[in-house]
């Protein structure tokens, strides 16, 4: 059974500054419980804003550090889930349910990738 990494991409610069509504949190909590109870969810977490992150690059024999926020790309990874599913269609179905938890006003996307050799 392959494992999938679902990277949640958000537009950090246009993200609402307020915490997610209790309603969204409740929906998300119920869904996560369902995914876990289905024996599918292996790991999931949200990430702190990119302003707290640092990019480290190894290039031409030199290390360079770039502190966040990372503003050059519109979308940044805001969280992830690792799921073990029978196939990609099943992983897509759970991802779809996750995205549907969000209200209609904003935009959020998920990039689903299969973990190699899993």
């Amino acid at each position, binding site marked *: 059974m392959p494992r999938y990494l679902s990277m949640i991409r958000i537009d950090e610069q246009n993200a609402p500054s307020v915490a997610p509504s209790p309603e969204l949190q409740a929906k998300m909590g119920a869904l996560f419980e369902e995914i876990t109870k289905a024996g599918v969810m*292996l790991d999931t977490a949200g990430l702190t804003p990119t302003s707290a992150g640092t990019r480290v690059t190894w290039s031409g024999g030199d290390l360079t550090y770039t502190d966040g926020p990372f503003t050059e790309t519109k979308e940044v990874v805001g969280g992830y889930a690792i799921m073990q599913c029978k196939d990609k269609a*099943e992983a*897509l179905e759970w991802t779809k349910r996750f995205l549907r938890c969000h209200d209609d006003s904003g935009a959020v996307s998920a990039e689903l990738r299969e973990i190699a050799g899993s």
Partner: protein
Amino acid sequence: MVTSSRESDAVEAVVRMEYPRIIAGVTRIVRDVGIAEELAQDALVVALEVWPKSGVPENPGAWLMATAKHRAIDLIRRRDNYARKLGEVGRSLDDVPEPEATDADEIDDDLLRLVFTACHPLLSSEARIALTLRLVGGLTTEEIARAFLVSEPTVAQRIVRAKRTLARAAVPFEVPHGPDRSARLSSVLEVIYLIFNEGYSATSGDDLVRPALCEDALRLARILEGLMPEETEVHGLAALLELQASRVATRTGPDGEPVLLADQNRARWNRMLIRRGLEALLSAGDGPYSVQAAIAACHARAVRYEDTDWAMIALLYGRLMVLSPSPVVELNRAVAVSMAEGPGAGLRLVDALAGDPALRGYPWLPSARGDLLERLGRPEEGSAEFERAASLTRNTREKKMLLARAARAGWDRPPR
């Protein structure tokens, strides 16, 4: 309108994901897993007809559940009327639950009842395994047949017979309470453990490990953790399987040959599964699966083979000998003792097992003995033991490895 293959894949995925819960929900109404499966199949057929035209409903699981339950209630009403016509006392319609009343907890309860029914001790262990994989794991008979290297009709027969046995005995659709609860839970855990083990160290065939079976077992264990969070042995079993599974990729070499624990590339052990296993171990208790998980955790925590806490492992095997004594456990204890105290101490324990009838034909007894003799500087005797071990295994990969060890021991002992 379903136009793309993505959408039809999605429909199939939903149907597969919801299958066990629908079977469970319908069984509560009709009290027969065989009939429940037929009704669930009917609902799936309807879905596959209707959804491509009308679109997949917002909550496809609830839709399928309601459709299947309506059919179940129709069936009971027809039976009821028939019985009444015959003047018999029919089952009261008041007993029939409403299809709408399906909250998440209720679905969980039904699923747990289904698990206990599929693992009923009335059934042979082959039947329990097949029925659990089919009904709870959602595998097709073809997938089960492939996993266990038997023909599809054999598996289908097993499942049909198992359902008939359950129906004939009128096995109640319930999670047992009272005195037989712990024995019934043991039966459930055993089924999952057997499925995992068949994948982890295949007893026959050309492949040493069949990871797909391990993953199916692991999924069942994770589901059970969610359904019975208060049972420490469920967490113990889950912890054991997570930790064992973390090593699956390193247990065989590039040509499918077995790689011993000492020689495995620990950098390739799956850290996420180890972390999950250690986490589950925190909720485990002191039953046999929990103790085995604690042993697996000793290996998982050792960054290098040399770091392994063999004294602790020997102690834990000692505890396991009290909980569920078996010569195989004692053999493992002997190996751990040999690592903690030296090969001489281990050999004394192994030799005490030599006459045990339960170990006659068990290849790992001579193999362990061969290893100890080798370490004691008696390579010729060691070589003979490995040869004996090779003659006892039915797995071709294991046989090859044991013969290689026999040759190596007879030749010279390479430094470790």
